[in-house]
């Protein structure tokens, strides 16, 4: 085949046709690519656009504390074109068996949160009933916003056929709110469970704790549900040696057909348990072990049992923190005269009670710090002013300053002078109070009254009997 023949042959025609089509198509696509390329910024803008429904300008906002109690903050943007609103991607915990990730628009006005703009679902893991979550439910977060709101399913923020997933969404929104409030607006959240461990298992809103009669801590825990198990209400007492001394399920959240085992409802199973006993089963993270694992949890109602174990772990793990945070003077009388946070008391071995009181100021008087010991027969056995709050030119009378005046005093002696309400009698009345420093004297009298009136609160009747036997 000569060259001339080749150029005339069909093969050549085929090659030319194919190559030219390829060339034309290639050039066309190159040009189109240049015209139609979608950049990375455009993609992010699109994602945000989907949420806002229009184009907005954003700035990436940094996150210091990603892991909140009930949510994980994934991403956050400050929407500069919308008056500094925040767009937070937050993953709410506490779903049916997983988490729900939402985009939450937190609206800002005057450096304060003014509302929830919009909540959209980004993705979810482990939830089975997400199809039930409708737009109207997501809208209820913006319509139902109040200042300082904490969204819970109990307050109606739920879809009844998908309560657990609703709970996770509530948590995601709460997490976003908390993130914006604490990190972006620098507001302190008044959260007494701030330093507590394992708070993800409990409902912080309705969980309380107080000093128990034997010196341990009694928790009234509302435990979050898990899987088939609904919320539990459990009363747990942790004694001084950090073991459980009392355990009672007051509201059983197990669902029909899967009743909580008897020895868990009446608490027998938990008496004497230590934190290590529970982490030995569930591990440090208190993960649900799964139905297939053959652990103690695997009872007829594994989910409920798990919830009860988690509550016990919460109670045990937080003994020290709770003790530090406890309101020792709950139910005490005359507390208005003392500064609760700086006052404390101890029960001595001989059943006398020694108070270290920081007494509130009154009139001309500054704060007093007084140590009072009330003996077993409910009289004052020791009275010592460690810091005199009397201001010049007044001077606390000597018998009060050294406490002699109060030794042996009973509550009746003080109420006889001041009345049941411990009202300030007034400077003109000629009472014992009317010394050279009436205000200071009054303050010392109230402190003494406080110490005397609350002896029974500090030393409960039972422990008295118990000690007497020793």
């Amino acid at each position, binding site marked *: 085949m000569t060259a001339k023949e080749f150029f005339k042959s069909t093969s050549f025609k085929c090659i030319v046709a194919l190559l030219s089509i390829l060339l034309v198509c290639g050039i066309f696509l190159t040009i189109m690519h240049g015209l139609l390329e979608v950049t990375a910024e455009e993609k992010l803008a699109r994602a945000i656009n989907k949420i806002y429904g229009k184009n907005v300008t954003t700035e990436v906002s940094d996150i210091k504390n990603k892991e909140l109690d009930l949510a994980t903050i994934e991403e956050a943007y400050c929407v500069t074109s919308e008056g500094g609103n925040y767009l937070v991607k937050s993953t709410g915990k506490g779903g049916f068996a997983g988490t729900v990730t939402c985009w939450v628009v937190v609206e800002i006005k005057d450096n304060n949160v003014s509302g929830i703009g919009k909540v959209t679902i980004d993705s979810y893991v482990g939830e089975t009933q997400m199809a039930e979550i409708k737009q109207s439910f997501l809208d209820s977060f913006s319509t139902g916003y109040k200042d300082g709101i904490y969204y819970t399913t109990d307050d109606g923020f739920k879809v009844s056929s998908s309560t657990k997933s609703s709970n996770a969404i509530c948590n995601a929104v709460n997490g976003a709110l908390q993130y914006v409030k604490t990190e972006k607006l620098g507001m302190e959240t008044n959260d007494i469970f701030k330093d507590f461990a394992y708070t993800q298992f409990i409902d912080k809103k309705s969980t309380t704790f107080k000093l128990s009669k034997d010196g341990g801590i009694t928790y009234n825990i509302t435990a979050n549900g898990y*899987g*088939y198990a609904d919320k539990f209400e459990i009363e747990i007492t942790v004694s001084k040696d950090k073991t459980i001394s009392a355990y009672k399920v007051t509201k059983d959240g197990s*669902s029909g057909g*899967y009743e909580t085992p008897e020895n868990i409802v009446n608490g027998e199973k938990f008496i004497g348990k230590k934190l290590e006993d529970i982490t030995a089963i569930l591990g440090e993270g208190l993960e649900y072990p799964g*139905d297939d*694992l053959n652990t103690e949890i*695997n009872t007829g109602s594994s989910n409920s049992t798990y919830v009860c174990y988690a509550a016990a772990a919460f109670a045990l793990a937080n003994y020290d923190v709770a003790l530090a945070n406890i309101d020792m003077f709950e139910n005490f009388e005359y507390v208005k005269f003392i500064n609760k946070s700086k006052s404390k008391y101890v029960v001595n071995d001989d059943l006398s009670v020694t108070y270290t009181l920081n007494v509130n100021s009154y009139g001309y008087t500054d704060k007093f710090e007084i140590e009072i010991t009330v003996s077993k027969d409910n009289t004052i056995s020791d009275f010592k002013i460690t810091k005199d709050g009397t201001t010049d030119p007044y001077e606390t009378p000597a018998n009060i300053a050294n406490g002699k005046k109060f030794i042996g005093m009973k509550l009746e002696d003080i109420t006889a002078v001041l009345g049941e309400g411990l009202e300030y009698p007034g400077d003109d009345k000629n009472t014992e109070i009317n010394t050279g420093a009436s205000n200071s004297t009054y303050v010392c009298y109230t402190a003494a009254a406080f110490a005397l009136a609350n002896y029974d609160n500090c030393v409960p009747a039972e422990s008295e009997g118990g000690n007497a036997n020793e």
Partner: protein
Amino acid sequence: MFDNTVVVSTPPHVKSKRTTRGIMLDVVISLAPCAIMGIVFFGWRALMLELVTVFTCVATEFVYFFLQNKGFSNKCAHAGEVCKRWLKQFDVSSVVTGLILALILPSAVHWYEAVIGGIFAIAVVKMLFGGTGKNLVNPAAAARVFMFLSFSATMIKYGLPAIDAISADSGTLATGATNLSVLLGKNPSTKLSALDLFLGTGVAGCIGETSKAAILLGFIYLVARKVIKWWQPLFFIAVFGFVAVLTSGFAYDTYTFDIELFLPHILSGGVLFGAVFMFTDYVTSPKCVWAQLLFLGVSAILVAVMRYLTTLEVTSFIILLMNLFVPLIDKYVMPRPFGYKKEKKVKEEN
């Protein structure tokens, strides 16, 4: 001049008094113990589901027949005649399908879901392929798979029976778990004693699969009436149990062959029910003995292995899968024709 000893006729040459209707009635009777135990264990929901599926299946078959035979043409002129014809050909097989379907459902299934399952079983799986004897796969198994994929929320809600475990060795099952889920999990063990598993007391499961004693009763009846051969389910169960024990050894931290799991394995889940009532279905199982052995053996191995791999009860899926292979097995494993002798291979001499 005629030789009367030789009769020339078209097949079938051998006839018996057994009819499809008679056999199907036998099957219904053999299912009765399971149905009754289901009602005892799961109450009115079980009864409701059994009635709903049976009614739906029969009604669907009737409607299909009515339409197919043009019951509506000429302003329903032949409606009565069509109904009569339907009654004449009615062979109870749709009742069997409906009853089996109800028995392999959990009691939590809603009635309308059962209705859709019944319609699917009869209309799509059976009638579209030509009616009784022509369906490719077991209608009840196909309907269960269809419902499993469609209504996953209720189809995995296995309720606990009304009667608690009676044996002292038995623990209580975890929420939503069956004995099978414990058995197929890591480090397999059995929560319930073999006695409880056999009686079905305290066993979470499907309506009819829970009480193995009832299934055994049905099995004995079917064998006595010569509806199925005694060795079919036994062969299946034996192969299955052995392979299941073999495979579940891998679920331990180190491989352990624990023959004590044999009983729990065969008594958990729906294997026994499938072996007795579904793998022995005439229409969807091979014809000759060797083919049946092959069919049952492969099915048993598949059920055991897939159960281990998926940690789900897969019996109905395997029934469906193996049913599709039946024509192939029938083609290659031929029965020896009557009077046929295998030709001996004669060595050719040089």
